[in-house]
């Protein structure tokens, strides 16, 4: 990896000040950043190690919601009683990701910031990657794109976001609190990650030097009926080909509220409002499930090698809804 300067901080303000040098990167668990640095994909000039910041707590919020500090490790978040009781969907998503060793290191903030697993992004011997080096092209679009996006991609980039956690957060209406040189702001999860458009080098809407402080989860009515379904090429330690976070609020038999969010299919967690509208106000049954599943994939634009993902996503949405609704 390229040589860098290293700064360790124990105050949030010091972290933000410390990142003023050009080419600075925050380091949390390092489970993705260090790999990318070893591969010369990321070449930060300064590392600001934030692991000592007081951001590793899971707190109950007055409205019945929960705040997860940015430095809470994935395994701690997954197994926290508040998360398991109130947001089992999120706990499932955490546990579907990576391996126990990685989850023990990876932070919640870092999970949001992880980069795509696109083959062509990871290997600098492939010259064409707009995400890695803007303007060089996209080797994946006409390359081996079995794992790539079927929604929301652009001519410049067909990468997907690899997080499981973020898919569940999108279903749970999470809000990301960030702090930068000009103060604190709150970003709804749906606006946190970007579609690639003409600037695929930008994964998120974070401004330079902004630091994730926490992820807030509002009080949820989905705890009783939710399911995270992850479909991958092996039983564990593989990224999703397609994942679905399905969450239902069905107090009296008919569905009052629902979330359907797909993972592994777009540059960000892909919430399908249109599919949700097929279910709200109806009873969950094979007819409504089938309508929602069809609607989920209407906008799909597959590439050469990933057409199977469209049908897989349709079936996965149906299966996740059945599982969430307890239909066997």
């Amino acid at each position, binding site marked *: 990896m*390229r040589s860098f300067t290293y700064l360790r901080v124990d105050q949030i303000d010091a972290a933000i000040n410390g990142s003023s040098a050009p080419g600075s990167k925050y380091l949390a668990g390092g489970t993705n950043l260090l790999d990318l640095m070893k591969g010369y994909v990321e070449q930060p000039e300064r590392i600001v190690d934030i692991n000592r910041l007081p951001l590793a707590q899971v707190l109950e919020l007055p409205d019945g919601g929960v705040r997860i500090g940015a430095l809470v490790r994935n395994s701690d978040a997954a197994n926290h009683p508040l998360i398991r009781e109130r947001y089992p969907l999120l706990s499932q998503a955490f546990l579907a990701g990576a391996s126990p060793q990685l989850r023990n290191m990876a932070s919640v903030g870092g999970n949001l910031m992880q980069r795509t*697993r696109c083959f*062509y992004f990871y290997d600098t011997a*492939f010259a064409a990657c707009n995400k890695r080096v803007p303007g060089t092209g996209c*080797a994946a679009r006409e390359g081996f794109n079995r794992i790539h996006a079927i929604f929301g991609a652009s001519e410049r980039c067909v990468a997907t976001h690899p997080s499981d956690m973020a898919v569940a957060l999108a279903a749970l209406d999470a809000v990301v609190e960030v702090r930068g040189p000009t103060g604190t702001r709150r970003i709804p999860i749906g606006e946190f990650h970007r579609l690639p458009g003409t600037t695929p080098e930008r994964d998120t809407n974070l401004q330079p030097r902004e630091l994730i402080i926490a992820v807030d989860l509002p009080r949820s009515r989905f705890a009783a009926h939710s399911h995270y379904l992850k479909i991958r090429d*092996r*039983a564990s330690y593989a990224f999703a080909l397609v994942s679905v976070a399905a969450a239902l609020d069905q107090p009296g038999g008919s569905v009052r509220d629902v979330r359907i969010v797909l993972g592994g299919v777009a540059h960000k967690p892909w919430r399908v409002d249109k599919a949700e509208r097929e279910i709200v106000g109806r009873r969950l049954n094979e007819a409504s499930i089938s309508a929602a599943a069809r609607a989920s994939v209407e906008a799909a634009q597959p590439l050469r090698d990933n057409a199977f993902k469209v049908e897989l996503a349709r079936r996965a949405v149906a*299966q996740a809804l059945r599982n969430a609704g307890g239909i*066997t």
Partner: protein
Amino acid sequence: MSEAGIGRPIDRVDGALKVTGRAQFAAEFAPSGLAYAVVVQSSVPSGRFRVDTSEARRRPGVLAVLSYENAPALPQKGRAAINPPAGRTLSLLQDDAIHYNGEPIGVVVAETFEQAVDAATAVVVSYSKTAAQLDFEKAKSSAYRPEKLTRGPADLSWGDVDAGLRETEARIDRIYTTPMEHHNPMEPHATIAQWEGDRLTLHDATQGVSGVRQTVAKIFGISADNVRVIDPFVGGGFGCKGSAWSHVVLAAMAAKEVGRPVKLVLSRPQMFGPVGGRPQTEQRIVLGARRDGRLTLVRHDVISHTSFMEDFAEPSSQPTRALYACPNGATTQRLVQLNVGVPTFQRAPGESTGTFATECAMDELAYELGIDPLELRLRNYAEVEPSSGKQWSSKRLRECYRVAAERFGWSRRNPKPRSMRDGRSLIGWGMGTATYPAHRMPASASAHLLRDGTAIVRSGTQDLGTGTYTVMTQIAAETLGLPVERVRFELGDTAFPAAPVSGGSMTAASVGPAVQNACSALREKIIAFAIRDTASPLRGIDAREVAIENGWILSRRGKPRREPLSAFAARQTETLEAAGEAKPDKEEEQFASRSFGAVFAEVRIDEQTGVLRVLRIVATYSVGRLMNAKTALSQLQGGIVWGVSQALFEQSVLDTRYGRFVNGNLAEYHVPVNADIQKIDVTFIDENDTVFNPLGARGIGEIGITAVAAVLANAAYHATGNRVRDLPITLDKLM
């Protein structure tokens, strides 16, 4: 019979060393003054290049940057040792030609590993590219016949296929394909090279210290006596460490250049290309049969890829030449050249890919005929090797079928596809025949009785993690009449008596008899000394009446007389030693020797998503005499796990625009994780193949992987009605 007992399931003698981190692997030696080398690779598949190393040389800690511009000229441009399997066509910085993406084109040496890596990124390479051939499909039209296979001719026919066709009442004609794969042992390739004058010592991660010595000596034009290769522990090989690849020579070249010991360890991505891999295959199989299931003809036509640098043919037609009784057969092997690295042997070369085709085809024929797949195999049981007519040295496959079928419960199978369910999931049962040929090569060993009464036995063989240390210790202990704790077996050093490459499942059958002979000779020497030893209670007894048992030297007849071997040894003024050799004899060659097994599996497939889980695999093997029942079980279970991997996960995906593997790392090149592996039930048929060799062992390193991919494909067909003929069987092919 001593405690040692050949075959007993004793723990690995090197187990404690390994789990406590004291076993020293090639990269873990630390000669003083060690410098670090990294390989610079091409990033285009074909053409010529120029290199600017000026910036790299200025980087901190850099000791040397070698490329074709300044590398020492080698005799015959580095081609002096091309003699597969040990000596391959290498990339040794002798010219500016590029044959594949990832080819070594330079070496950077620095004070630290990090400095070497950093400087390697500063080497500026400019390419003049030429058109590359990368598409297997397109290259097929120019397929050609290789001169020969590693063993046997490229094309082999018997009987009269056309005559067979006239008797055929049912026929299947199918194409099966398998992808490129890479071995990826846990331990990457690693070499430490150290020159003292014109003497070279290599610590090298290898399956064959002797082969590395011969190859490197020839390449540098020095005597093999001046090269010593040491490798006491190998972290897996599977074929890729069976040859001396470019980095071994480059490490030695770099060490000479900087006048210091140099360590060169390949990174995981560097394991995809410069050190071999399993060739891609396309296999056409034609089976003809009568209505009663008896085969009338079999054709197996194989196309596999090789490099432009060297011919290597994946001998996938081998199983067809040996597996089922059929009077008329024709097998062919063809090659297509691609701009990729030289492919090589990968665990069960030929049989791993070949049995995918043969065992799927037999399943398809069984459905065509409406005959149970197991019954079809029994009706075509080969009492002799079909292609040669030779008798088997020993074969107990029929019992394998019976035992495994019973343990699995095969008789309860409803043959109809999609007939077995578990809720929303489909259940499938499949079976097939595993096989791998038995070979042995000349080997030698030495045995020494130390004055403390313990023995050291040595052979220049290797332990790839298979249990060589353990089984050779058992063979030596039993032959010497010592408890196993009193024998130390040493290997992995060219200073020891020579032994063949640890490949082809032949170490037990090759080295075992040599160890046995050396230890027999030492035992006879001990007895001869003892009966002449005035201080021995055995003095004057006929040598034929003296034995060594469990550490005691004793008389077998007459008045009981004995003393501890340690007491005898303590009186000796010098170490007693003996040598032993073993090699195949002519008589053996009159027989065909091959191991077999019967493999059954149950899979569960989610009907909606195509997700496949292997619920259980039941397998019974006929592999000759076991040297250690515990390590044998591990070998077969591990082989089956790799079979699951071949079936469901593994493929090196070549981007045919760039000639580069897109998933060249262990995150994206999938192998099974623990969660993918459930019940594996392995049993053995009691067997002792003393026609093949005096120890009765046939070798167990490779057969485990064979047939498994077909068995799972057959089970997937039974579950879904969907026949997948292209590996790996990913969920999109089953949806």
